[in-house]
């Protein structure tokens, strides 16, 4: 069942489009990550969903009902701010119970629901503290409890882990995920960190420059990026142009066989990609999908060895076993497993231009 439906949602600031024609359906209980570099429009989208910002055009539906004209306070979209914002004039319990109090819930019920929520976020007994007496992680948990206690239609989190240190991120991530699952709350969070998105979200929504790039489960962004931009955002630099004929892509370095499940682009020029960690070193050209390459750099990384190689006219990254002993200038063979090759949708001509600009 669709909890939130975003239809051709757009927002302009002056002459600039912050968000352009965004379409998205979010199922009930789903956890969505709005991912993208800063300035891509993800926060603007979040604020439009909460109602703090009016869309320039488009529609927004909660449970099938348009909410564009419903003010924030009656929309039921709870927002967790990046700064772990707590009302400084209130205690923890007052903060958590704020939404219930606004809704006119009676005191006894507020008390029990607040205590229950504080238990869930592992802050029982902190009810009488003031905001400035809490650590960053504790503040974040109070903010989470406060957002969830009213059972919002949708929970929105703006960079929920951005201001926390590394260890705390892991515990908070787990906590957020588990509580969201338990309560079955529909949630959307904004992040610029693709790892965070992958680990937390059921589905990722990737945006560049106010436009939607790709929507799907996290693994698709690794294995099946739609564009070079998406692939690069997920830290893959490996692209090679060739000419497709059926399941064969002929490149300057040799022919590659691709799987039947690769998208159908028809015959003609295409660009293929494969992630560094899926590549293997092979013994020679005779093995299927092996291409000759020369080593530019080899960096020992502990768990693996990172090779940067020249593959025909492209520079590729290869994640080799840690014991790999090659050095600069060595000639090696890289095998691209058939199932791991993917064809991106970029036009080869425009890609050449873009990669010339982007590669440094």
């Amino acid at each position: 069942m669709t909890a939130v439906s975003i239809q051709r949602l757009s927002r302009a600031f002056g002459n600039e489009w912050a968000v352009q024609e965004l379409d998205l359906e979010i199922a009930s209980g789903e956890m969505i990550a709005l991912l993208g570099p800063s300035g891509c429009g993800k926060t603007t989208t979040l604020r439009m969903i909460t109602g703090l910002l009016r869309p320039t055009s488009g529609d927004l539906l909660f449970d099938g009902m348009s909410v564009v004209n419903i003010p924030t306070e009656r929309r039921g979209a709870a927002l967790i701010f990046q700064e772990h914002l707590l009302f400084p004039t209130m205690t923890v319990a007052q903060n958590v119970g704020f939404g219930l109090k606004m809704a006119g819930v009676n005191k006894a019920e507020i008390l029990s629901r607040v205590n229950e929520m504080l238990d869930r976020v592992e802050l029982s007994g902190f009810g009488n503290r003031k905001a400035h007496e809490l650590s960053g992680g504790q503040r974040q948990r109070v903010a989470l409890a406060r957002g969830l206690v009213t059972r919002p239609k949708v929970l929105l989190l703006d960079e929920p882990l951005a201001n926390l240190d590394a260890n705390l991120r892991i515990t908070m991530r787990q906590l957020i995920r588990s509580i969201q699952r338990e309560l079955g709350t529909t949630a959307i969070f904004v992040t610029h960190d693709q790892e965070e998105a992958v680990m937390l979200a059921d589905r990722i929504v990737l945006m560049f420059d106010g436009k939607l790039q790709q929507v799907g489960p996290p693994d698709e962004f690794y294995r099946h990026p739609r564009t070079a931009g998406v692939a690069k955002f997920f830290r893959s630099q490996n692209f090679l142009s060739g000419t497709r004929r059926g399941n064969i892509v002929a490149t300057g370095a040799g022919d590659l066989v691709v799987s039947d499940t690769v998208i159908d682009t028809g015959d003609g020029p295409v660009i293929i990609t494969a992630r560094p960690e899926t590549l293997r070193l092979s013994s020679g050209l005779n093995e299927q999908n092996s291409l000759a390459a020369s080593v530019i750099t080899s960096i020992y990384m502990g768990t693996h060895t990172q090779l940067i190689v020249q593959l025909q006219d492209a520079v590729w990254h290869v994640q080799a076993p840690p014991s790999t002993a090659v050095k600069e200038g060595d000639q090696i063979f890289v095998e691209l497993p058939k199932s791991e090759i993917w064809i991106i949708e970029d036009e080869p001509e425009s890609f050449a231009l873009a990669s010339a600009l982007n590669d440094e």
Partner: protein
Amino acid sequence: MKLDRYSLKERLKIPLMVFPSMAVIVLLFGGGLVFGLLQSVGYLPVAGLTDFTFSHYVNVLTDPTFLRSLWVTFRIAFIVTLLSTIIAVGMAFVLREQFPGSRISTFVFQIPLPVPHLVAASAVILLFAQSGLISRIAVAIGFIDAPSGFPVLINDKLGVGITLSFVWKEVPFIGLVVLAVLQSVGPKYEELARTLGANKRQRLQYVLLPLIMPGLLSTWIIVFAFTFANFEIPLLLGQTFPQTLPVQAFQEFQKPELTSRPIGMAIATVIAAITIVLLVAYRRLARYSRA
């Protein structure tokens, strides 16, 4: 040795930094209060007063004129503080947002702040006297036909003229403090409250007012104490009788009869005592509101 000298220098650093201003205040202000207190109990040998007595206090505190003055002074200060706060907070809420003309209007809003109180009094007289500009406009419109038809707003029983000139001055003061707090807080807390279902009234009551409260408390106490102790405005715009306490104190002090001076000082001491109580009460309150 060098180490010792260094640490001595370090230890004396803060006291030396604090000393000059403390000396000025303790000597001039503290000294003034002490001399005033001594004069009020009739003991100040340098002035030829040697009879230690509380009779001036007894006389002052049992004098119905004093009690009426105290009430008038208190009432005016209270009304000024209340009115200024309500108007200032309301205006600050409007002015913190950007809209066409908001910048220039915020500037105009600040104009009375540095303007001396006497100027405010001067303008209030020109505008609100029974033959003042507003009365003349009322005549032109046809509401009244003679000055006597216009309500008495200067030198009046309720202190309307005094209140108006104080409010004119104090609104920007309170308003700018509130504006400064609101600006530094930003729109975040309100947005947060909205997402938690708080409507306009609830946001004001539960979020914004508690946020500006500490700032408001400080300005309240400053404005109240200032209004309570001001001399020239009630002297110009107050009625002949009863006058406010500072006017009464100063006039007693300035009377040619030498016996009046201790009485003036006794009234002044009572004013000081009341404001000190205010100060202490406020610090208590402030501690609670921030705890």
